[in-house]
């Protein structure tokens, strides 16, 4: 989405001098553009975090799978390959700025003749980046689970896959909701760097408006306030979510009396 040409058609609008008056005028005049940018920002953050989480579930399983003495040759090496792939992936994506990743991904593909829509490129970059961080978050979540949970499942005859699916990943996910929520909030803010390849998110829109009138402080003040409000709403919603996930019946009667079998 290129807001600049649209903005240029409204350039005749006069923006009053002075910080407060100017900010107000920009806000009133360009609200639809800021909202459009916000929509893209939210789309990138929500899709990136959700799809990134799904990928992270797959990656973390690849990363932590156990190779036993009796594992046959081919599966054993496939497992080693899977682990190596995820480790390399995580190292690269956590070790480089998302801004640089976006540049390489978008212009790299373009030089190979693949022209992705800018928004699609932005979505892919934020998703791949988030997957790397969430893989590590899920891994530490899995490691924080009492080994007794796994032993109990295995001692009842559950397979490794069932143990992960029905017990370990479920518990890790529940414990990790705050960390996953944090990743969403980081993404709301950090997708600003995708403006570097021209994704029309909030920062990009703010810069377009600012450039059109040379009113940088005013426009970015509006952008900052919108980010702040949206992040505060997200924090509130995530708090409600973890409260809802963690809720348990109130009446805690743990008295042992009269219960001896």
């Amino acid at each position: 989405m290129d807001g600049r040409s649209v903005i240029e058609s409204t350039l005749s609008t006069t923006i009053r001098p002075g910080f407060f008056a100017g900010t107000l005028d920009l806000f009133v005049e360009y609200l639809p553009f800021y909202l459009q940018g916000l929509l893209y920002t939210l789309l990138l953050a929500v899709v990136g975090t959700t799809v990134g989480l799904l990928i992270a579930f797959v990656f973390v399983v690849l990363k932590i799978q156990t190779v036993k003495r009796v594992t046959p040759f081919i599966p054993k090496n496939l497992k080693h390959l899977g682990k190596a792939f995820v480790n390399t992936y995580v190292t690269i994506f956590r070790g480089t700025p998302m801004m640089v990743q976006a540049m390489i991904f978008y212009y790299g593909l373009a030089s190979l003749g693949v022209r992705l829509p800018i928004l699609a490129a932005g979505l892919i970059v934020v998703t791949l980046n988030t997957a790397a961080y969430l893989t590590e978050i899920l891994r530490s979540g899995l490691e924080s689970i009492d080994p007794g949970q796994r032993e109990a499942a295995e001692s009842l005859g559950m397979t490794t896959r069932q143990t992960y699916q029905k017990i370990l990943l479920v518990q890790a996910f529940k414990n990790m909701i705050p960390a996953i929520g944090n990743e969403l909030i980081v993404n709301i803010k950090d997708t600003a760097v995708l403006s570097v390849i021209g994704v029309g998110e909030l920062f990009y829109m703010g810069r377009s408006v600012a450039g059109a009138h040379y009113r940088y402080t005013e426009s970015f003040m509006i952008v900052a306030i919108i980010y702040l409000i949206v992040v505060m709403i997200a924090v509130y919603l995530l708090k409600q979510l973890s409260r809802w996930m963690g809720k348990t019946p109130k009446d805690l009667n743990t008295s042992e009396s009269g219960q001896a079998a």
Partner: protein
Amino acid sequence: MITLENIFKYFDETPVLKNINLSFQKGTINVIIGPSGSGKSTLLRTVNFLEPPTEGNVWIEGERMDEKPKTLQNLRQNAPMVFQSFNLFNHLNVHDNCTLAQRAVLRKSKKEAGHKAMRTLEKVGMASYWNRKPKQLSGGQKQRVSIARALSMEPRILLFDEPTSALDPEMVGGVLSTIRNVAEEQPDLTILLVTHEMAFARQIADRVLFMDLGEVIEDRKGADIFKTPLKPRTAQFLSSFQ
């Protein structure tokens, strides 16, 4: 029937089990006692391969244990374990703790698994707590639920790894009487019990084994070991409980 054949277990270079050869007959209650670090819990954990032995074979009802997923699943479902630290599934309520493995391993329907779960929970006196989460239960209640969870699998073997060691003293009695009831109601069940409850061992055991430093020092019928310990090490250990 469980047979352990030339079992050695090393943690890194340290030997924990040294050439264990034992058979446990169907329907017997076998109690393993011994000081901490004697290898008694490790021995129990080699039976269901939570700790696969470094050397040697484990046979359960004529089938040899190995680390193949299929074998582990088949043999473990018949020999579930009750742990010292309960290990109830924290995210599931009491009822679902007892149905999860029935559904996943035995492929039972939701309804069938639920019926079985409630029947076993009644046996251990926990049926009215069916919708509680583990963190809402006392230690004794948790352990009775974990016994019900194991029994829900309709096993032929039950492994108890110090089931009362993590309990407050006033809760020990309830769990022990639950174990006694289970043993009385299901005489075909083969029980391996690692415990420090000597009085209980004396009442319930068909056979008592004393372990020290990774070896079975003394292996006696009934409560004989308590009356006439044959080895000085056994006598010394038992005298610390007087």
